[in-house]
């Protein structure tokens, strides 16, 4: 019988701690599949974040180093400058990248560091229990915005891809989602492209992935996927935000 589906070599055979309906496990699997398919498992070095995905190093069977909260792109910069031939990518949440780590991300992008950022946007701080993130939508209730995020006092959500778009050295920026089979496939393609950009030593690439967090959104898994389409993707439009031919 022909095997049509199996665990990627780059994914460890262990149960994941993620909540039911969470997007991290899908994104982990996509990365693992791509590392296998592109023959990059033995070249990859990943910098996971502080946040839900901090334990990514128990799931991806590749070299990993933990960074302080928000500093993943600075750590990745140090690694990549020493090992320019390795595939170096950070995996960061919205709080990690767009709040505490904004300066590091922005400047790594501006320097055109030849790294890839997998940016998981679920509009909340997941690990700490659902507080407001820089990407929390206006009016959205979180544990620290019980009346809903007020854009006049808390600011509107930050669109990271659009923020980085204007920097000359960003090469590839795409926003995708993992809320439907079609979007999952698009996400895989986007990550593949980003890794490809890095292999060509073309510069900074980032894939922003809208990812469901049913637990902190107080929704079930199906409603979370619908909410991404109907609400989140309106604030954060999907698609290629920037692509410099390389």
């Amino acid at each position, binding site marked *: 019988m022909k095997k049509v589906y199996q665990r990627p070599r780059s994914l460890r055979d262990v149960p994941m701690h993620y909540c039911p309906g969470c997007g991290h496990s899908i994104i982990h699997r996509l990365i693992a599949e791509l590392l296998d398919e592109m023959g990059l498992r033995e070249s990859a070095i990943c910098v996971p974040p502080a946040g839900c995905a901090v334990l990514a190093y128990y799931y991806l069977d590749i070299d990993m*180093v933990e960074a302080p909260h928000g500093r993943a792109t600075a750590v990745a910069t140090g690694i990549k400058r020493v090992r320019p031939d390795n595939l170096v990518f950070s995996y960061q949440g919205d709080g990690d990248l767009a709040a505490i780590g904004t300066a590091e991300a922005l400047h790594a992008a501006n320097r055109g560091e030849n790294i890839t950022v997998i940016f998981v946007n679920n509009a909340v701080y997941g690990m700490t229990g659902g507080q407001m993130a820089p990407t929390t939508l206006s009016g959205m209730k979180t544990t620290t915005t019980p009346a809903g995020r007020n854009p006049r006092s808390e600011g509107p959500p930050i669109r990271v891809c659009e923020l980085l778009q204007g920097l000359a050295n960003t090469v590839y920026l795409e926003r995708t989602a993992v809320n439907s089979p079609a979007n999952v496939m698009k996400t895989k393609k986007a990550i593949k492209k980003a890794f490809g950009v890095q292999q060509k030593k073309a510069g900074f690439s980032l894939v922003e992935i809208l990812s469901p967090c049913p637990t902190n959104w107080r929704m079930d898994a199906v409603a979370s996927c619908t909410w991404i389409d109907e609400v989140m993707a309106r604030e954060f439009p999907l698609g290629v935000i920037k692509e410099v031919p390389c």
Partner: protein
Amino acid sequence: MNKKLMYGTHAIGEAAIQAGCTCYFGYPITPQNELPEYMSQRLAEVPGGVFIQAESELAAINMVLGASVAGARAMTSSSSPGISLKQEGISFLAGSELPAVIVNIMRGGPGLGNIAPAQSDYFQATRGGGHGDYRLVVFAPASVQEMADLTFHAFDVADEYRTPVMIMGDGMLGQMMEPVIIPKPRKGKKMPEKDYILTGARGRPARLVKSLILDTKDMEEHNWKLVRKFKRIEERETRWEGYMLDDADMVVIAYGTAARIAKGAINRLRREDANLRVGMIRPITVSPFPVKAIREAAQTIKDFFVFEMSTGQMVDDVRLALEGQGTIHFYGRPGGVVPSARELGRSIARRYYQAIRKRKQ
């Protein structure tokens, strides 16, 4: 060996290059800017050399972490307020057991303070500085030559024990010029193989470098492991200099620039017309602190005069080392004030005569 006239900061930079440092990350702050400037030029000449002027101290220390885990010898430098910002990264380096060399050219504080030489970061450097149970190895050079020698040595210590190491100078040492012989790499020096670095999991199991240990028993064991490591460092790496101790009735304890001034003061006091029998113990490692040297001195000497360019920080370590033996006298000049040898000498002499009078009573 070529003797060259060099700034303290440049001597640190050149010694780092000779020690095999290929990565420097930093952020401008006075009075240490000459070091990143020197590194920006020199690392461009070194194969594989990496120099980045980072967007912040936070970014700089984390770039060091990245370069270190990738296997390079990496360094950053700053001055007091910038070193405060680096503490997060230093704690992560210590927790993840990654080697790195951090240079602090201290200035007056707290807050923005000023840009004059000071020794007010002693607590921060020797008590961990960042969060969590760890100790930093801290060298305190007192001359441009020592800045070069200790920086060179610091890279070996960092690699051998997998620990961050600090070079703690001050604005005076950083900015002054002295003749110096830059150490050259010795052939055949054996360093432990870096079997933890990330190179991609080719033909070996994947590696993981981290400081997150959720299991409390494992975290406890990790803490004790760091303690054992520091004990080993204490036994093997503690350094100090004794000066005119043989016949001394009083010992001055000072480090760095303060020790230079103290030496001048002692030389004045030992002139024949005064002939005060004063010696000095100068900690070269302030962490680990030369406890044994002070305890041994306390068997014959009863008066210890601690001089710091601070309100009194190292004096706590002297007190701990003496365990109630002897009498401690303290003279401190914080805020960037650098007293002259004559001024310090007067203060030492006053305490010396008081001590003699007390003994006679």
